[in-house]
């Protein structure tokens, strides 16, 4: 899907006529095009350049000067030596696996939990539905940063601090995801479900067979943002995890930076390991990333 989207404008412009036009079919002047591409390249250097520099640093060998002025952007002898060293210094692959476990659990619980609750808020009739909706709206408005201390004490009371379950639990069914799913179900035409209802389908059948398959797009958005949120999260795992053997990748990187701050090649290799999976995910599923921004902004 995303590949098609990415190439479509290029083809259209090329096929219709040789010169370049804007979306209203007006021709764009050459100097304007040059100006636009110059600006685009400058912004590209500012936004993506730092990642490339980090990658380049991580590939530079121990004998190469990484502080040279003027800087050298391409490693002279690219090597994966730093990636081996970072794994010798901290258990980086274990940390990555912990992050993966946390992120996967967060995806599953958020998709299942918010689809169920969203369906209950949108489609089912019962006493207290409006109260239930209000509960989720209020929960969405509470700033996480303001309740982390109480979340930490709650986790201690449950005996779950310093565990990966403790990392996942507070955000495992996000109020905002519930409301996103509710809106998605509300936007479905009611007639199909009514027909199934007349045919004698019970509430679970209607939910699983009819409603759920129609909101796949929103579920994908919830899944992606749940994965990204858990993989990237910093403040909460920093508070709840104290045992280095249970660190997630972000906390491990912070530890690496705090302990080996002068070894820039090492830290660079660690950050590349942490960011590469998400960039790959984004490259494959960018449509849903952008869609999520729109839906999230309208809500937030």
């Amino acid at each position, binding site marked *: 899907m995303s590949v098609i989207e990415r190439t479509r404008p290029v083809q259209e412009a090329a096929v219709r006529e040789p010169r370049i036009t804007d979306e209203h079919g007006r021709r764009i002047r050459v100097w304007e095009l040059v100006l636009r591409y110059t600006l685009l390249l400058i912004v590209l250097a500012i936004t993506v350049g730092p*990642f490339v520099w980090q990658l380049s640093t991580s590939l530079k060998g121990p004998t190469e000067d990484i502080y040279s002025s003027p800087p050298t952007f391409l490693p002279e002898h690219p090597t994966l030596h730093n990636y081996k060293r970072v794994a010798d210094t901290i258990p980086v692959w274990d940390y990555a696996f912990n992050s993966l476990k946390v992120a996967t659990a967060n995806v599953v619980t958020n998709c299942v939990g918010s689809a169920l609750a969203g369906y209950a808020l949108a489609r089912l009739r*019962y006493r207290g539905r409006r109260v239930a909706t209000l509960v989720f709206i209020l929960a969405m408005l509470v700033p996480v940063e303001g309740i982390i201390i109480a979340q*930490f004490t709650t986790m201690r009371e449950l005996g779950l601090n310093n565990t990966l379950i403790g990392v996942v639990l507070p955000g495992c*069914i996000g109020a905002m995801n519930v409301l996103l799913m509710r809106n998605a179900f509300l936007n479905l035409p009611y007639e199909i479900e009514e027909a199934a209802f007349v045919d004698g389908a019970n509430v679970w059948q209607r939910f699983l067979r009819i409603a759920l398959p129609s909101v796949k797009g929103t579920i994908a958005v919830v899944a992606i943002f749940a994965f990204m949120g858990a993989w990237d999260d910093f403040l909460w795992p920093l508070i709840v995890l104290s045992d280095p053997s249970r660190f997630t990748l972000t906390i491990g990187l912070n530890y690496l930076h705090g302990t080996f701050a002068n070894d820039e090649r090492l*830290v660079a290799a660690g950050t590349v390991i942490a960011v590469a999976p998400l960039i790959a995910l984004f490259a494959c599923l960018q449509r849903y990333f952008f869609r999520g921004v729109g839906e999230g902004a309208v809500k937030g």
Partner: protein
Amino acid sequence: MADVSRVRRQLPTSPWLFAAPGLLVVGVFVLYPFASTVINSFTDRRTLIPGHFVGFANFRELWHDDMFWTGLRNSTLYILGVVPALVVLPLLLALLVQKNIPGITFFRSAFYTPVVASIVVVGLIWVWLLDERGLVNSLLETIGVGQIGFLSDQWLLLLSAMAVTVWKGLGYYMIIYLAALASVPCELHEAASVDGAGAVRRFFTVTVPAVRSTMVLVGALSSVAAFKVFSEVYLMAGPSGGPAGEDTTLVMLVQRTGTGLTGRVGYASALSVVVFVVTVALMLLVLRADRKEDA
């Protein structure tokens, strides 16, 4: 009619079964902690010691705590520094990537990359870039400006952290603006340019009024986020908040005082209550400004 039969055919408990997991999680891990934060703020509770009611003692202590004022100052400065940039720059960026010229979808995606990366990755990338011997300083030296201690001076540190926040947020708000720009009728632009308005003039007379409500939204989202800043400053200035702790933000102070085995839960809760109050006030303020301009 349909409604009545629907109620009869579904089990009376099933709606609650559907909603229960969500309500449970939100109740136990969001609303209960919220309530207990407010209650704890009136106690002297510590991590391992249950507290007693102390009235407004925590808030009185806040008033005389220099670190609290430092945190409040830095978090407020953060709003002032970050929000104008995040309201304006992504709009300009959206205008730049709006036209469907060849390769533009690549640029749109590329500009979004910093949003996808973890704040820890972003923080560490910039710690290295802004290092005394890092890329930015070596470029500055090459063009003859000389070294700048971005990460050693109290104010430069805060400014650098703000720059990183803006850098990471650009792509996100760009996408929000793109959606808003798509709904601006192009006839408006055409009419304006027939009337002889140049690009700058059209920006102020057509684009800005058309996306004004989106600008308010972006302002609200970014100011609430800016006030709660933690990770950027924590990573760039260090856990203790830079030279003499002068770069500590309010949320950093919450994290520092409230966690660990010796954490002062009561006092940190009082700090959290301040975070709530300011956050809610900010939202109300922005919404009110929006309504006033509409009238």
